[in-house]
């Protein structure tokens, strides 16, 4: 029996290889066509989450609130006063830091699990896998709305005035969402290759938590250290998103103009790198 050239049969019949990764443009177009899947998945997951707890969606706000209370109390007592920024209301300062940081940390942690945690979905249905991390970021964005409202109310309650600058929080958060999506895409693919990464993520998150100046002013704490340390700390985009929001809604905080460049640049670059990095392994998801 002579071996049959199956590839030639397929070629002659004009068949295409199944599961082949489409070119990036086509892939993104397909994602756009299937966008309703991502948005519905996000919406329905929030609803499912709400029906599971007695307090439902309130936990989205309660969780960072309790965390802010805890950290605020502990570090308000332990840390010397001179670590706090001058002329700033300490409580709103911590609240803004913890709430905005929560957006990053949840996107990072859940993003890393967005493929491995949905293994059965990935193994049984065809769709651009990028929809899963995307759905997650949409979910985080929806949950961010009540968080921002509560944050605003608290800040007002501490006597900060309501100004037009507050509106700029929205584009800042959209930039941060782009950054978070990029991070989620990177983490999602890396976790597929190396499962153990999920063990390290809380550690990295913690590192970012301390490095982003949530309950102290980096400028004050690092004032006695060599200059490069402050520089490294300030280039961290997570710190910049937080500082920009603080600048917009709190008195006494000043985000230098270059932070807007870092915030926008980090958003665009991280997202672009994340998309390409994630897309290149499209054929591998669900394989193991």
């Amino acid at each position, binding site marked *: 029996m002579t071996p*049959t050239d*199956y*590839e030639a*049969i*397929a070629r002659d*019949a*004009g*068949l*295409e*290889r*199944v*599961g082949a990764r489409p070119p990036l443009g086509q892939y993104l177009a397909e994602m756009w066509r*299937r966008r*309703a*899947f991502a948005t*519905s*998945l996000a919406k*329905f*997951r929030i*609803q*499912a989450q709400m*029906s*599971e707890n007695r307090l439902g969606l309130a936990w989205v706000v309660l969780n960072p609130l309790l965390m802010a209370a805890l950290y605020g109390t502990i570090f308000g007592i332990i840390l010397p006063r001179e670590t706090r920024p001058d002329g700033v209301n300490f409580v709103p300062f911590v609240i803004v830091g913890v709430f905005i940081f929560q957006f990053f940390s949840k996107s990072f942690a859940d993003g890393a699990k967005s493929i491995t945690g*949905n293994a*059965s*979905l*990935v*193994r*049984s*249905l*065809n*769709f651009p896998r990028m929809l899963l991390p995307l759905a997650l970021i949409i979910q985080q964005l929806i949950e961010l709305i009540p968080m921002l409202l509560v944050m605003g109310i608290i800040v007002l309650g501490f006597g900060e005035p309501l100004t037009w600058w507050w509106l700029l929080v929205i584009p800042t958060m959209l930039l941060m969402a782009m950054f978070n999506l990029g991070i989620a895409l990177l983490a999602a693919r890396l976790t597929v290759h190396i499962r153990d990464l999920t063990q390290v993520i809380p550690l990295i998150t913690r590192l970012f938590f301390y490095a982003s100046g949530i309950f102290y002013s980096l400028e004050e704490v690092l004032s006695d250290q060599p200059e490069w340390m402050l520089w490294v700390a300030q280039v961290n985009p997570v710190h910049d998103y937080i500082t920009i929001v603080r600048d917009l809604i709190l008195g006494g905080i000043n985000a230098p103009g270059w932070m807007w460049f870092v915030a926008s640049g980090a958003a665009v670059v991280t997202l672009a790198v994340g998309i390409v990095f994630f897309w290149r392994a499209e*054929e*591998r998801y*669900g*394989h*193991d």
Partner: protein
Amino acid sequence: MAMTEPLGAPTVVVDDLHIKYKTFTSGKKASQKRALLTRQRGIRVVHALKGVSFVAREGESIGVIGHNGSGKSTLMRAISGLIAPAQGQVFASSRPALLGVNAALIPTLSGEKNVILGGLALGLTPQEIQKKYPEIVDFADLDEFIDLPMKSYSSGMSSRLRFSIAVSRDHQILLVDEALAVGDKGFRQKSEARIRAMREQAGTVFLVSHSMKSILDTCNRVIWIDHGNLKMDGDPEEVVKAYQASK
């Protein structure tokens, strides 16, 4: 193989397909010594398919049979492109679709929302879902229960709903993995009729089943997979007879 009938155009070509699963779980016998530092969890490779090749053509209904663990379901998943081959490749005229939607559904949500979510997961547009919604709910016989969370459904009810969502989209190349027997007798007949209709509409159908009766009833070609190898391929009566003799 002597073929006297005219052949349809090829729709699926499977070319020397190898599938391997890697697992981290230790498949070794437990040793007496418990050394924490030695690498006990070696990667174990399961060679699920070992070089399967065939051509499926327009108008064929292909039954896939084999013992448990022979690689039938793996073959289906590989044809639909859900697992990447270790070696070899699969070609198709359009993306083959595995019939099933379970994984996309969220049990704490109502049946109604799950119909929407399941439809979107299958690739329907929101408009198409809206149009098909009454048909899906009607087919599942759920009536007033459609507003209740899916986790409150009986197993029959939820399998009926899953089936109705899964068959709401038509496919050119359809893969059915033992989905025929769902629900009670009445629904089984209804679902079998629906699958028959889908089969007539689809160009090529693969059916994995342990029921030789449903294979003989519906297929015009049978492939027998044995330990990851293609053991026999041809006329249903002949292949089923040989398969049953092998048991």
